[in-house]
């Protein structure tokens, strides 16, 4: 997809400014490091230390499609694979949602707060392209941070598990679907909500507070359901991702159709 020049220019301007903003960069680094490096490291080491524990009763409660492959493993590997391969998954979907929400909240409200919005609106970029540029300016870093975070997560859990498993076990095919398909959809959904909230709020903080009412339930759903996501088959995970994409796409396209400079200044 070739983006129009002004869209690319707005994204480039936003990304340059984000890179120079410690208040934005710090949580974008700290949260993924905490969730995708430090917690898996700690939990993984604890699971490795307890690798001889019999978890067959826990596995018996899981759907057969998940439990069976784990039950086929030696007992010493079962806890590590269950924890690092399945139960840590919720942490993963928090990252794209959080990064997208933080950046999208800043999209218009941040411009108002910095008093740069008026200058932006007087530039020759059509309303719809401006909206999409702001959406992509939040989406691309969210996905990039998620993917870098996942690579770090995979390195950590495989390294932690290596003394017991002697093989690379993450990513699985299901993980790949979550990373490449579901996580970007979740990021897009967070943005679809937050960019519209941002257009109405006066400051990024207000946008975060207003958006939090919508984002937090989404976050709980994402956390609650993501473990389950890794307990389903690949086609079902693809279907769930598609549903999230459709919802996110609907929100973003509807937002773009309703977005005008006039409405932004009239609020």
């Amino acid at each position: 997809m070739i983006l129009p020049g002004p869209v690319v220019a707005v994204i480039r301007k936003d990304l340059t400014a984000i890179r120079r903003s410690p208040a934005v960069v710090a949580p974008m680094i700290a949260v993924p490091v905490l969730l995708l490096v430090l917690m898996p490291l700690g939990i993984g080491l604890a699971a490795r230390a307890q690798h001889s524990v019999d978890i067959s009763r826990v596995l018996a409660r899981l759907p057969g499609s998940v439990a069976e492959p784990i039950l086929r493993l030696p007992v010493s590997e079962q806890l590590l694979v269950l924890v690092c391969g399945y139960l840590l998954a919720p942490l993963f979907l928090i990252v794209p949602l959080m990064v997208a929400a933080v950046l999208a909240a800043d999209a218009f409200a941040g411009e108002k707060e910095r008093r740069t919005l008026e200058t932006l609106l007087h530039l020759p970029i059509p309303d719809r392209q401006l909206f999409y540029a702001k959406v992509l300016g939040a989406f691309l870093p969210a996905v990039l941070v998620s993917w870098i975070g996942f690579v770090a997560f995979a390195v950590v859990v495989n390294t932690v598990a290596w003394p017991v498993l002697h093989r690379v076990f993450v990513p699985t095919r299901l993980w790949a679907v979550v990373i490449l398909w579901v996580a970007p959809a979740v990021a897009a959904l967070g943005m679809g909500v937050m960019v519209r909230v941002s257009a109405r709020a006066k400051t990024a903080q207000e946008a975060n507070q207003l958006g939090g009412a919508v984002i937090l339930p989404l976050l709980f759903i994402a956390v609650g359901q993501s473990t389950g996501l890794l307990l389903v088959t690949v086609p079902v995970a693809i279907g769930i991702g598609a549903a999230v994409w459709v919802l996110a796409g609907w929100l973003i396209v509807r937002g773009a159709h309703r977005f005008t400079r006039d409405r932004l200044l009239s609020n």
Partner: protein
Amino acid sequence: MAAVIETEDLSRSFGRQVALDGLSLDVQEGEIVALLGPNGAGKTTTVRLLNGVLRPDRGRARVLGLDPGADGTELRRRTGVLTDAAGLDDRLTARENLVLVAGIRGLDRADARRRADDLLEHLGMGPLAGRSVAGFSTGQRKRVALAMALLHDPEVLFLDEPTSGLDPVASRDVIELIAGLAREQRRTIVLCTHFLGDAGRLCHRMAMLDRGRLRAFGTTADLAAGLWQGLVVDLDLGGPAGAAVLQILEAAPGVLECDTTPAGAQVRVGDRDAVPAVVAALVARDVPVYAAVPRAATLEDVYFAVQEGRR
């Protein structure tokens, strides 16, 4: 001469708040027109409507032959705007602010960088081009923002308070730059300002707004002629005129009105020919007259008269 900007009954409200009500004016090519008025008069709304950022509720506008509402993107390629807040991103350097905005305008990156450096140099900001604007003074920010507005050689410039926060030397430089743009490059400029001195020096015509309505539009001389008959003469009497002196003045032939001033009195006469008779009347009553200076009405006189509703 072609009108670059034309509006007819241009109006806009926000809810119940009327921001602009029936504005009709024209701006010719190469002309500098001032939008004058207190805060909330409708100056910023006018600029937003003329540049296609807002849409009117009623009336129409044409800028460079385009309808701002329908052809806003095309129009904004040919206009430049300096906003009141300067609109610079504190996280970027002065040069980055210009070059990244130039990218949105579709300028080639290398050309944009060269042009940005030239403009910053011209505005005395060359040595600070690579510094973050976060530490800049108001005057420095204004100059960077002005460079941003001029980056693409716009045919029409909308300048909102271009000299606020500038020291006298910088202010004079900016005024000369703006005057030069209109005079030598035939740029059309709409200047929103509170500084009547700047407007008086720079602008050909003044549009005086108040609570969204155009109260007066024209040159200072035309507006003064519409407001007052005759000529104002300052009389230096060596001190404020007392009641007796004011009585002499009121009785003098050709005097329309008179008032006391710290140096003596100010009289309004029908024309220049009445001045000798006024001086003679004072001298005949032993009132010393050190000077009698006819004075054209200033923009300040006109502005305050209009704002006070003397029309």
